[in-house]
């Protein structure tokens, strides 16, 4: 008897939730658009912002969002992961307001989005510390990754077989590394991992392993970051344009950003974020870059 009542109660709750779901989805979007458009000149910003995309960028945006929400208590920002492709798809569908991406939208054949570059990420090849190499010529790096050099001793390192640790084909990190470190060469087959921490762990544990990582993962000495052609992988060298392997982190909006979006994007590029949160997470401030790059990879002095 009682169990039936519970059962029907459950059913009712479930159906109510489904109904609420339909309504809830609709209303939450309305408030976003409505409230942001209204609050034009007033200082107090309010509304809701949904962001998704690049898992690499997520921690940064999430940290900045937290600060931003502390300063503007009426604002609610949700930062989701999902990957660059997801972020780009969702922002162009209008499912989210901001889409985070490691790559130019053009590279994924998506157009009609407004690019907001919020950070720069430098990356370099990293090897197992026992390999005994700290510097590598770009030509050699290409040979290593294309499989022409198979043992580290050919480059004066330890007598260890080279193990490549790649990123998935569609990964932005892989695209950048191939383009700017390998000169567009396609790397030979190797272990493929998507996650930076896993890649780092593999490089650290596998003798003779080489992979590539963002500077943010190269803070300790569990793996050795390689200089390329004698240029050290440092923030200064990237900013001055000497170290070529880097990429923008983008926050895309669909059309010109609305007030709330603009306020948040401005905050992301403000010195507050650029000089405090960014460096802590190993990103380079986009504001300090002395060079610029477009979607096709052409680099120009600012």
């Amino acid at each position: 008897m009682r169990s039936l009542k519970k059962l029907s109660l459950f059913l009712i709750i479930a159906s109510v939730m489904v109904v609420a779901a339909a309504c809830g989805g609709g209303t939450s979007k309305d408030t976003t658009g409505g409230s942001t458009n209204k609050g034009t000149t007033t200082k107090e910003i309010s509304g809701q912002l949904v962001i998704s995309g690049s898992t690499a960028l997520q921690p940064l945006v999430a940290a900045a969002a937290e600060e931003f929400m502390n300063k503007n208590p009426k604002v609610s920002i949700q930062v989701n992961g999902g990957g660059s492709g997801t972020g780009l798809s969702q922002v162009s569908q209008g499912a989210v307001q901001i889409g985070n991406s490691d790559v130019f939208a053009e590279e994924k054949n998506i157009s009609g989005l407004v690019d907001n570059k919020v950070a720069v990420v430098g990356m370099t090849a990293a090897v197992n510390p026992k390999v005994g190499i700290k510097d590598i010529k770009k030509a050699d790096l290409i040979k290593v990754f294309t499989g022409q050099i198979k043992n580290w001793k050919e480059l004066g390192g330890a007598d260890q077989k080279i193990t490549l640790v790649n990123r998935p084909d569609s990964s932005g990190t892989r695209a950048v590394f191939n383009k700017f470190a390998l000169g567009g060469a396609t790397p030979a087959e190797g272990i493929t991992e998507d996650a930076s921490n896993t890649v780092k762990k593999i490089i650290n544990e596998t003798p003779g392993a080489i992979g590539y990582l963002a500077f943010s993962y190269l803070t300790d000495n569990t793996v050795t970051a390689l200089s390329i052609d004698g240029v050290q992988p440092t923030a200064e060298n990237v900013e001055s344009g000497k170290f070529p392997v880097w990429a923008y982190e983008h926050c895309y909006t669909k059309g010109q950003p609305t007030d709330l979006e603009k306020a948040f994007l401005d905050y992301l590029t403000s010195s507050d974020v650029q000089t405090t949160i960014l460096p802590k997470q190993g990103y380079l401030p986009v504001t300090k870059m002395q060079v610029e790059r477009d979607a096709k990879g052409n680099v120009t002095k600012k």
Partner: protein
Amino acid sequence: MNAKVADRVATGVFIVIAFIIVSVLIGLFSFILYHGFQHVSLKFLTTPSSNMSAGGGIRDQLFNSFYVLFITMLITVPLGVGGGVYMAEYARPGRITNIIRSCIEVLASLPSIVIGLFGLLMFVTLTGWGYTILGGALALTVFNLPVMVRVTEDAIHSVPRDLKEASLALGITHWHTIKTILLPSAFPTILTGGILAAGRVFGEAAALLFTAGLSTPRLDYTDWNPFSQISPLNIFRPAETLAVHIWSINTQGLIPDVDAVSNGSAAVLILSVLLFNLLARWIGSLIHKKVTATK
């Protein structure tokens, strides 16, 4: 003589197999608990996680895990029990029953990643909800439902036929018999099965990656209005569960204490599953006693 030797050898082999299974579990558990317990503390459980600095906890993730589980069970239990009752009591052998049974089996054997993809398409994109607890719970429902149906069906089948006949012979209708005789008698078994299924839901990550998302908005635990954006009870917010948290910090996390947090989380997860198990046994036997003895 030979047969006897073979018998002894075979017995030995079976004991070794049992021993291997037990030691695999003990090995896994002690590994996880040994590595994890150094980091589990009250503070670890009650601090929100951090995106960049060390010392983050798992407060929100822990809550999310239980909340997602709760919502999932809220949807699954009535549907699963209803489906199980249908299969056990109403389904007549025939084409429709065959189709339903095939559907249950297909749902049960679907890879969780396929369910995650389906959830992404259906509950995230198509509905326009984005990553939500509800989306995650619905995706988990897809793979928990067949388990619940099977548990209920088996439980009802294990109720002695006599009881059903007794009730029907007194002129009580079939539905009322199900409600008042079959389901109460099957309840301990359903409960145990349900709690065990809950353990599996609790640790699921692949399906949730694509549906409930990888982040948790700032939560205010004093806000109990389920429609408020910052309320933990809001089912239209993204929620990173414990299992997803382990996955995400291990893959992308920038915090310096990745190992500590993930080991600690794993230990908490395992302990919760252990708890579910003990709870299932305890409550099951308790209710069994209560139902058969005096009410």
